[in-house]
């Protein structure tokens, strides 16, 4: 545990491929050594649809990251997303045999097995089984109850599953580039490692990561994850909406969205028109009413956020004490904080990493939150392994090589 360890996070997003090399020092602090990004091609709504293209992108990102960090990248933590990923909370209940009063490790393992045993469709595989808490006779314990006296043991798990073949294909894509995959992590869970600290999770926090093709969310209540998921709509949909309404090319619509868009619904920001200047490629000058542009953006974001809100477990909204953390490229949209507040009536924060050193400029940008979160996730997983309690976080995903 004494020596520093290097972890690499890889996110294959809809708009960009991002690879981060981070060093976890012996004292547990994280330093970012380098970062490589490449514009993604061949990814739609978080899922790969053109492998040869995306391989080039990943390779490009790797070269950049290697160059920046001076580290040869051999294995990565891969974040995945996509509409196929589902999550449920399941409780495994185990009644202790009558002659035993004290909870033993094997009882917990038994309860875990029961919890895991949920009815998922055959094509789905487990991505994460995250232990939320233990309950002994209905009384919640956040640490292991081994040694306690009780009758029934309940293990509450948050189970994330996804379609196996799609995840496999993502892994294959990375392996073809002579890199190993240490672990596959559902994107919002990785982001949450970075964005939410313990106190915030304790009071209840919702992370919404609005990326290019997908919007991922993770809800933390009482210090543990309560819900996570993915909505297959994101910034690219906003661009597409603008494109469809105005007839502008995608690149222009994208530029318009980034430079001029505003989602706050503040009428005074929707006054006048935006002129799109003539360029060399023969576009005539066009203008778009701010009112219309902002309304298109707003409608889309309202829909995305409302969908997230609907997906949250009933009543959980009131339990979000800290507030809502926004990350992802689309969270840079002007006025999104106002809009999110209108929908959720909660305090809004920008997801920011507090305890990471390195090139500051990079991780202030919410676009990189997921990849940086992967490093933190890797660090935690490492700790977990060293403690190596087999009863702990059982990660039993079928893709590990060794």
């Amino acid at each position, binding site marked *: 545990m004494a020596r520093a360890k290097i972890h690499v996070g890889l996110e294959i997003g809809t708009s960009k491929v991002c690879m981060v090399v981070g060093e976890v020092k012996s004292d547990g602090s994280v330093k970012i050594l380098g970062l490589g990004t490449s514009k993604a091609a061949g990814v*739609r*709504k978080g899922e790969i649809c053109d492998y040869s293209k995306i391989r080039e992108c990943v390779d490009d990102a790797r070269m950049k990251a290697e160059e920046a960090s001076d580290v040869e990248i051999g294995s990565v933590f891969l974040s995945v997303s996509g*509409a196929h990923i589902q999550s449920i909370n399941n409780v495994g209940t185990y009644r202790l045999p009558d002659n035993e009063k004290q909870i033993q490790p094997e009882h917990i393992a038994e309860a875990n097995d029961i919890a895991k045993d949920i009815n998922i469709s055959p094509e789905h595989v487990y991505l994460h089984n995250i232990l939320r808490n233990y309950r002994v006779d209905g009384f919640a314990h956040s640490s292991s109850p081994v040694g306690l006296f009780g009758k029934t043991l309940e293990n509450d798990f948050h189970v994330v599953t996804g379609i196996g073949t799609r995840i496999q294909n993502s892994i294959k894509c990375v392996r073809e580039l002579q890199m190993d995959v240490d672990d596959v992590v559902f994107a919002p869970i990785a982001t949450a490692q970075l964005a939410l600290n313990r106190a915030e999770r304790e009071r209840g926090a919702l992370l919404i990561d609005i990326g290019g093709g997908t919007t991922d969310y993770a809800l933390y209540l009482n210090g543990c994850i309560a819900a996570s998921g993915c*909505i*297959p*709509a994101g910034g*690219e*949909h906003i661009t*597409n*909406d603008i*494109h*469809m*309404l*105005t*007839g*502008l090319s*995608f690149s222009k619509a994208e530029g318009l969205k980034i430079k001029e868009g505003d989602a706050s619904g503040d009428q*005074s*920001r*929707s*006054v*006048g*028109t935006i*002129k799109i*200047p*003539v360029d060399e490629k023969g576009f*005539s*000058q*066009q*203008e*778009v*009413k701010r*009112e*219309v*542009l902002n*309304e*298109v953006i707003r*409608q*889309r974001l*309202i*829909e995305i956020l409302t*969908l997230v809100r*609907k997906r949250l477990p009933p009543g959980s909204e009131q339990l979000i004490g800290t507030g809502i953390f926004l990350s992802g490229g689309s969270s840079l949209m002007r006025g999104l904080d106002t809009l999110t507040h209108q929908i959720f009536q909660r305090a809004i924060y920008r997801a920011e990493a507090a305890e990471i050193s390195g090139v500051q400029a990079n991780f202030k940008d919410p676009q990189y939150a997921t990849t940086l979160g992967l490093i933190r996730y890797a660090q935690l997983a490492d700790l977990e392994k060293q403690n190596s309690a087999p009863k702990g976080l059982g990660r039993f995903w079928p893709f590990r090589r060794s």
Partner: protein
Amino acid sequence: MIEFTKDPQNTIPSSLVKIIGLGGAGANMLDRVALDGMEGAEMLALNADIRTLSGSVASERIQLGRNLTKGLGTGGDPDLGQKVMMEAEKEVRSAIKGRKIVFLCVGLGGGTGSGGAPILTRIAREEGAFVVVFATMPFGFEGHRRREQAETALNELAVLSNALVVFDNNRMGELVLAKQGIHEAFSAGDRMISDSIKAVIRLVIRPGLIHVGLDELMTALRTTRSRCLFGSGMASGKDRASKALTNALSSPLLDKGALLKEASSVLVHICGGDDLTLYEIELLMQKLMKYVPAKAHVLFGAAIDTNMKDSLSITLISALPEEKLRSSNEDAERIVLAPTEGFEFDVSEEQPEPEPIAQKIDFALTDAIPTVATAPVVTAAPVTEAVEEPDATAAPIAQIDDWLDLPSTVFAGGERPFAEHVQDDPIADFAHATTTPASVADAARDLQEALQASIAHEPDELSEAEPEHKTPDLGDLLEKTRTRLSQQESLFDGDARGKFADTEPNLVDGDDLDIPPFLRKKKK
């Protein structure tokens, strides 16, 4: 010894310039001009509402409708505005008498402005003045009716005035930030008009190194029924030349210089302090040439004004025939098939304006003088061109010769249908005058009166002719929107997904997320 006096370069003394503010909005503009300090020029405020009139800072004030409205306003009724102006005609005429240039500031849409402005313009023209009208169009939210009133007045002004500069209040949002107060928005609009007036006055009055005067101004604004493009900017300090040009081009009337592309002649006037350098002018013109088409006639003027100190001002004036605005609008409509509420080609701001006035007036006149209808040139051209400078007896002969070529087919044709129908004497004189240039000027004046008499009737006829003329348009429009709607609907069913068109439907809770939410909501 020959005495050499430095010729003042046929400049017009400022005492021959009159700035008139008509109606409430006009009074505001006038006040702004006065506050900005317009030394020399006379100001005249005309209003029916005694309260706003008494609050005006103008040196001269005339109350309209002393007997008709008794000190109250016209209450948004253009007919009443017309009547009160008629009532005060004598007073107004004597106030304008002998002025070379009249600037008329008016806010269209209300009663006094919309009703009175055309008549005032006619009076001023009859008194031999060069009339430049600065008009503001009402806000979109002021309602359809006001807009219509404003447009009717604008159409008349386009024919009657020598130059028409229109400011659309709807574009005022570009002058100020959205969060600024409404008074600031209005004062920004007034300031812009005041700047325009000052620039034109500076142009006409000041002696120039390279002189431009009324004649060039008229050339720049020559096209009949045109939309005036106007921009003026001032800057000082380092790089003042390009800064001033940027300021001038940022005028909402120029649309960042995009509208200049269509212009056939552009007047550029540069005015600077003693330290104005040739290099600066060269630099500025080079930059400007990027916006102006190569074949355009550039009328360049430069002047030194010691009061400018180290600042430099540039004024751009040009005119764009309305047909051009209109045709590009039609193009826009043809090209854009997809639902395009928020998407406009840059010219469409002018959309309400380019009513086919030429046709309308032809129609009106056809009713009055049916036989002339075969030669619409007669009605369109002389009204604006021949009337331009009735007193300047030296110049018109050449001009009249020019346009006499056109009507000769009608007039010299022996039958003289036009003359028979209207008024026998002047036209008979006129027909003879083709051979005797001495009487041409008189004849021209007579013809002008005859034509103006017919124009004076025009409003009534216009209102009669309009419904007939408009109904087919409306039908067309409805038809168009209907077809457009059906196109939209077919769009919903099929490929309303843009770049996601070839992917499987992205269903969440029964909604295809790839279709824009605004389309899905409409469909429901």
